[in-house]
């Protein structure tokens, strides 16, 4: 059996940041397990720029962003195994993995960081009716074909979903000579970042149809047509609004799902709202010594936030290994109040906080001119004015540790309130 202080599952941005931070905090024996043929995760296929504005104060491409971490990992001499799939792990921190190069291995660790990322929601999950020809791709899969393998997946494209990958792929396919006929979004607002709508659609005259959806895919062997319909307030297609597009390709950008099959099999408690593990201030899951960070916990918009969250996980994993984490009986719960879809972390042990508590959350719908109110059982802690809020943009709140000290706080609630005129 191999033995490491820390094993990180996943060598994407989350895993890399966690491993490097753990090393910086005194953990010497670290192993990163990556299933793909190189480190960097999905960043490697995100060849557009716009990464790193927060962390590096400059604009990098995905591979450039990844490279900085990979270089540091190499400088630190942190072990990593590529093309290696973790088969399972358990609450005793024993895991099995398999690869061509290393064979079937059993590894024990003092702590584990889960950084498996997420996967795309598929056509099956959203039940688009019609035939089942080739030419229907998840946007990320098409991105891999294009940017990693070097192949274009189609020439006339309709994209369902205005999540960031869909928007990025609208531009990318256009630049490679494909015609993107339309981006179709079920909701009355886009799920992607505003800057991507401007830079990827508007700049290329690609129409965005809000409150529309795909109601049929046609074609026997390859996609031949799609039918797009307007939807009502209940997101049901309105008869008579059908538009038929002749196209050979459909890209789906209809949401991401944290990939937690390993976590669930190991018995990690999940939050149905995030589809990720319930974590505490240390990014520790319900299994002691098993930490999680990045998109496996909740889907982020920006890799910078993944990096920051993962550094926290790496730092706390180091503390755990060094037995510096304290348990406390009265775990403070974070509560998603009116208008808030979820909050991460779900639990907080105030004593373990360094100086501050960072809460990450998403709102359920688009808001303008509202207040974000943070309350504890002591009363209102903080009120923040918000000009515009949307589910596609993650919200971030920082609370000072001293504001939360004392043993009387049981919960921290965040809610959206209309501004009183």
């Amino acid at each position: 059996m191999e033995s490491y202080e820390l094993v990180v599952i996943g060598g994407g941005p989350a895993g890399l940041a966690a491993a490097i931070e753990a090393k910086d905090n005194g953990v010497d024996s670290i192993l990163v397990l990556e299933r793909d043929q190189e480190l960097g995760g999905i960043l490697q296929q995100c060849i557009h720029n716009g990464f790193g504005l927060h962390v590096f104060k400059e604009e990098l491409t995905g591979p450039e962003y990844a490279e900085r971490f990979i270089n540091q990992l190499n400088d630190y001499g942190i072990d990593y195994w590529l093309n290696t799939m973790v088969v399972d792990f358990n609450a005793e921190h024993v895991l099995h993995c398999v690869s061509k190069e290393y064979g079937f291995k059993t590894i024990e660790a003092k702590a584990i960081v889960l950084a498996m990322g997420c996967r795309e929601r598929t056509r099956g999950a959203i039940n688009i009716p019609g035939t089942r020809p080739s030419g229907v791709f998840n946007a990320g899969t098409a991105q891999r074909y294009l940017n990693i393998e070097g192949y274009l997946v189609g020439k006339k494209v309709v994209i369902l979903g205005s999540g960031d990958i869909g928007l990025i792929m609208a531009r990318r396919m256009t630049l490679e000579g494909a015609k993107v006929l339309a981006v179709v979004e079920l909701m009355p607002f886009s799920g992607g970042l505003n800057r991507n709508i401007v830079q990827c659609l508007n700049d290329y005259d690609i129409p965005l149809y809000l409150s529309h959806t795909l109601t049929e895919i046609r074609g026997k062997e390859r996609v031949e047509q799609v039918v797009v319909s307007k939807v009502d307030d209940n997101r049901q297609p309105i008869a008579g609004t059908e538009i038929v597009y002749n196209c050979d390709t459909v890209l789906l950008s209809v949401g991401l799902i944290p990939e937690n099959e390993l976590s669930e099999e190991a018995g990690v408690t999940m939050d149905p709202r995030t589809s990720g593990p319930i974590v505490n201030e240390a990014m520790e899951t319900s299994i002691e010594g098993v930490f999680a960070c990045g998109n496996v916990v909740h889907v982020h918009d920006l890799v910078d936030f993944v990096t920051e969250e993962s550094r926290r996980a790496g730092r706390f994993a180091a503390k755990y290994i060094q037995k510096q984490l304290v348990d406390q009986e009265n775990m403070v719960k974070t509560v998603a109040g009116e208008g808030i879809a979820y909050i991460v972390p779900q639990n907080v042990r105030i004593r373990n906080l360094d100086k501050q508590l960072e809460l990450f959350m998403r709102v359920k719908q688009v808001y303008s001119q509202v207040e974000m109110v943070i309350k504890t059982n002591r009363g209102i802690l903080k009120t923040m004015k918000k000009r515009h809020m949307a589910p596609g943009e993650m919200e971030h709140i920082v609370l000072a540790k001293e504001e939360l000290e004392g043993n009387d706080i049981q919960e921290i609630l965040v809610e959206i309130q209309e501004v009183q005129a």
Partner: protein
Amino acid sequence: METKKMNDVIVIGAGIAGTFVARELARYELDILVIDQESDVANATTMANSAIVHAGYDAKPGSQKSFFNIKGNPMFDQVCEELDVPFKRIGSLVIGFDEEDRKTIDKMYKAGLKNHIPEMSIIEANHIKELEPNISDKVRVALFAKTAGIVSPFELAIALAENGIENGVKYQLETKVIGIEKQDSYYDVHTNRGDYQARNIINCAGVFADQISQMVGDTSYSIHPRKGEYYLLDKKAGKLFNHVIFQTPTDHGKGVLITPTVHGNVLVGPDSNFVGEKDDVSTEAMSLQEIRNVASRSSDKIPFNQVIRTFAGLRASSDIGDFVIGESKVAKGFINVGGFESPGLSAAPAVAKYVVEIMEGISGGLKEKVTFNPRRRPMVRFAELNLEEKQKCVEDDPNYGNIICRCEQVTEAEIIDCIHRNMGATTVKGVKKRTRPGMGRCQGGFCEPKVVEILARELNRPIEDVSYNGSKAYIVTEETKKQI
């Protein structure tokens, strides 16, 4: 191309019927050619159905459906063992909600007794809940038939094809029959890929069986395909149900079923709608919603948020309401296996034996092939192995260390093997049918590019020529940064 070579038998159609018939005939000294218009065996009705081996109580006593279902059911254990195909005798329940249903169930039970179906019983609410904790509280009574089972029909057909080839059967795919000419003692079969000759033809052409039959002047039946749509649920839902759960048929319809699959998913469906075109396997929002509504009567715990795919298949329903199995009255040596809708899968092993009997009658006795081997080389299913076995596999062949499909835990070694078997996969769907990459919750999102790459490499084709299913179902259009 084997143009003009005289065959003893041409089997038209490589679904469950055709592959079964060919494999049974392969026990004898016969030249057998199976042709199919699709790019793979088991690509139409055999690919999309309920995958159930029925106990046999519900077909009309005296019908061919009833006769062959009852004989076919007990034959599955042996053939699936010989061919290493997943089969589970999990039992079925026909559930009833009221007195009307109870009467129907009673009738089915009595019909079953008459048909000598073993291990049937009528059970009450408490017992039903013990067997199926997630079933609706409104269920009062059920017909429990222990001999019903589930199988993977396309894996069975592929295995039958492989075993047939092992024993001398030839397969010719992407070959569409466009005409048949009767000569004095044989048939000329005209196809898009040339002409073939055979003394006997076995028509296993599924929804197209009537058209093939008409080519020899036999207009005794016609096929009116009925479409059935399904939901396939994630393996996470796989432990919710333990048996095939039918609803009691009423005047309003047969209801829909819920069943575990042999791979641990849950299947919900089908509905039944006549379709005009024989290749209409599109799904429709309204039909799917209706299935959902009807299925929810059986259980309100079906997690429809864990659906990973919806699909539709066609039933080859004949206008006479029964199978059409036997030598044509107007064409000697032309044997129909027509109208092969449910319980066709359950009946297939018995039908294949019966076709052998007919052939014996026609040719005045068949000579057994001494070299016949009923077994095929087993499949390694890495995901199902225990840790020690996995370890051993990887030691023996490092390609078992490369997991290509993370959802179903399929290794590169398994994919390479399924491409190089004698009825090897040539398409992404072919690989998916044989070893399951793309069958899981990500639906190929991660593994498809890798499967495409392996197919291209192993078949020595450019990536652009690798298709999802058949030559026109291309996946990529062109390389973007071609070196000039």
